[in-house]
């Protein structure tokens, strides 16, 4: 190596360093050059291939237009020439460098021009409103939005936020506002068993009570079973069953299987103790929540544990990361939360309809329902 630096010329060694240092620096410079060259080559390949194909699509279209009555599949027997390509004997031959001869990029599938810049967010450019673009568009990079530039209204008042609603009742009435088309609301889905329309955020709880065995009836059945003769119950140890209404008694930690595999009895007990202790301060919630339980036939006991997890009083360490994943939480969006309900007025039926109506006007942070999990 006789030159003072490598190919990239980005790293210029000082004169006063030893020859080994110089060598090392010029090797590093060469490696940088290779990295840059690989990146450029990849982009070059994408761009040039797309443009070459565009030239071909364009001229094939001209050829099939020129020869009437030909089916799109057959190769018309015409000779056409454009700036970028020649069409002859059903073959497309390039003329010149497609990078220079072709400006647009046509989608190889729908043959419409590709939009080359995102319409919003980072690097956005206004598209030409007169052009019909291919539907595959550059993804949008904008805080608070997804790759299609969409955002969501808050999941709406639901079971998860009732206590908060009560605390902040005076926060002001809702003023209905038109929401922009790219702000979506949470949809509803039909329960496969009872065929009722349920807001998606409540679907799991609903199915739990409708199909599964976590509803009130199930816990009653379990209680009955226990009083009838408890030694046969196999899955749940009796100790935990007695504690059923208390949150966390079913030890449903994300890693519970592994945990129970490796720890013995004693640590399981310790685990439970911890959990019970943690849930103690929230006993209050349990009580205030009771009246609602009547309205909704099937509030599963597990809901309580969820509630306190998501609730405002839970430890900041737990909720903080979850909250950050929430949607943009401007009051405006929250108000729209009620939207999905009018769409499915009847089918929501007993399921929390009353709650949502009453808490619609409230504006506590809407992150709750979604923060769990």
């Amino acid at each position, binding site marked *: 190596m006789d030159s003072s630096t490598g190919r990239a010329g980005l790293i210029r060694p000082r004169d006063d360093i030893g020859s080994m240092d110089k060598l090392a620096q010029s090797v590093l410079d*060469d490696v940088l050059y290779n990295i840059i060259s690989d990146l450029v080559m990849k982009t070059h390949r994408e761009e040039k291939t797309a443009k070459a194909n565009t030239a071909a699509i364009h001229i094939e279209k001209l050829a099939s237009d020129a020869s009437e009555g030909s089916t799109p599949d057959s190769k018309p027997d015409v000779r056409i020439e454009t700036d970028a390509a020649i069409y002859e004997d059903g073959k497309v031959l390039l003329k010149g460098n497609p990078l220079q001869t072709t400006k647009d990029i046509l989608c190889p599938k729908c043959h419409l021009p590709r939009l080359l810049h995102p319409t919003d967010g980072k690097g956005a450019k206004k598209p030409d409103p007169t052009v019909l673009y291919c539907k595959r568009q550059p993804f949008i990079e904008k805080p608070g939005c997804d790759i299609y530039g969409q955002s969501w209204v808050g999941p709406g008042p639901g079971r998860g936020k009732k206590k908060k609603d009560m605390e902040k009742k005076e926060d002001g009435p809702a003023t209905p506002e038109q929401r922009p088309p790219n702000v979506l609301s949470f949809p509803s889905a039909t329960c496969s068993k009872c065929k009722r329309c349920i807001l998606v955020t409540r679907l799991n709880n609903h199915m739990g009570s409708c199909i599964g065995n976590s509803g009130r009836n199930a816990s009653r059945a379990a209680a009955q079973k226990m009083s009838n003769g408890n030694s046969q119950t196999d899955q749940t140890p009796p100790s935990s069953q007695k504690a059923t209404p208390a949150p966390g008694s079913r030890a449903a930690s994300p890693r519970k299987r592994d945990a129970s595999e490796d720890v013995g009895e004693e640590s399981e007990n310790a685990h439970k103790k911890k959990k019970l202790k943690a849930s103690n301060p929230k006993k209050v919630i349990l009580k205030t929540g009771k009246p609602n339980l009547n309205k909704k036939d099937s509030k599963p006991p597990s809901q309580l544990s969820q509630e306190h997890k998501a609730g405002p009083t839970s430890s900041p360490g737990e909720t903080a990361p979850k909250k950050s994943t929430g949607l943009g939480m401007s009051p405006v969006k929250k108000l729209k939360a009620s939207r999905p309900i009018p769409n499915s007025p009847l089918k929501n039926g007993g399921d929390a309809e009353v709650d949502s109506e009453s808490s619609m006007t409230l504006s506590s942070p809407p992150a709750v329902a979604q923060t769990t*999990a």
Partner: protein
Amino acid sequence: MAARPVTPASPKNVKVKTPAPGTPMYGCEHVQRLLTQGQEVMNSSISHYKMILRGIFDTTPIVAQTTNNDGRPVTSITSNFLCLQCPTTLDENERLNHGSKKQHRFYVDSRSGSLYCQMCDDLVWDPTFEDLRIRKMGTGSFSVFSFCNPELTGALCSLSGRKRKHEDLFSENDLRLINTNTTTASCRANGLRGIYNAGATCYQNVVLQSFIHNPLLRNFYLGDGHHDCSIQNCLSCAMDDMFQDFYAHETTNGFTAASILSAFWISEKKAFENLVTTKEQDAHEFFQFLAEELHERNGDGKKPEDGSEHNCDCVIHQTFYGKMQTATTCQNCLSTSNAVQSFLDLSLGLDNVNQKRKKKSQFSRPINLMDCLDEEYLNSDKCEYRCHGCNSTQQARRQTSIKRLPNVLSIQLKRFEFKQGGRDRAASKIDEHVQFPLQLNMLPYTHQSRIREGKENKELERSCIYDLMSVVVHVGELDTGHYMSYCRVGEQWFRFNDHKVEMATISDVLGAKAYILFYIIRTIT
């Protein structure tokens, strides 16, 4: 440098790749002139190009990186150019001289194998040459199909998940059959949608997203792999619907996984009774549940048993299941017994690795995936063992290696530990960052490499290379928190947070505290 041997004229005449509609026949006018001079020139150009590619991708790079500068070999780190028309390697400056002296106009980049045209003064992406290069680069062979070519994977989704040779894949008949019997999906339907959280179901969403972006499962479902099913609330039918929704519809709104959820609730799997609740659950357990349930719907009807060898050709077994072999050697009589068992995923412990590392050095380099794999599938451990030879309980050495690698390798990092402290031990989460690579070589952990120790085998190594496909991340505590995932589509990464999909950079992905990793094999042979 030795001159390349002149290849004898191939008995088979090479043909230009038939261009698909919407693609030009040649990369540029000059390549066209070269390849239309006559069959002889055509044959020699193609065979010469193949030979150059073999030199670049199959042998040590030093050969192609070395030029002969007046009898003095010079090896460079940056690209050289190999003349397509004669056996000469040149650096960038010599290239022009050689061209004007010999009238040779085409050169091959010594690092990438790309074709350079002197007259265009540009790289040329000729369909015929480029096709050879892509195949050689990805698979080491000129005829096998590779996943690293995004264009090919796109086309494959209309075909069944069966392993096919590249040639079969693109026969005229197949294409015609596809064109006449299918409707093309909208350009917007790209499989990128979020999934709504139905109330503490993010542990399901992350696994579902990794399934949706798994090319093998996608091909199976979009290829109508699960059909004529009359089972009520079948989970596989629900998956089928989900794939349709993701890849055929234009909607960009989130997906509501109602049918999957109800199949989940209705399922009566004893082993997963504790999983079916409205609470937060473990994504890894849900993955196991999905795998077993889908195997039952598509497979041989046998229950996959833990600790045994299970051969089934259902889509789940073809995708996820591998086999590992445990060799136990008695320390007394030195007899070895082997046990083979199927695995759905590799569960790697972190605490052992952590402890060992702490003992070894004060410098705390972050743990990486290979440390964990070494610990589990390279190093042996001691155990008590009832030896048949000695007919008594003996100390034994146990070593596990991977006998058959799966097409999609799922790795769970056991991010929990038990705090040492007498009787009062509680499970807690290891929140440490574990480094993992974008490209994973599993060769060292295979049984084959154990047998042929030391011998270098490019072919074998190539068949053990995996690319990162999805990453499942858990944030929060052991018993409550949130799951997100990263999935790769082509070369772009996306972050899936329930219904919200965002672009992600590679450093976002590699910086994540992974819980489950999905790696996909690079080449299917």
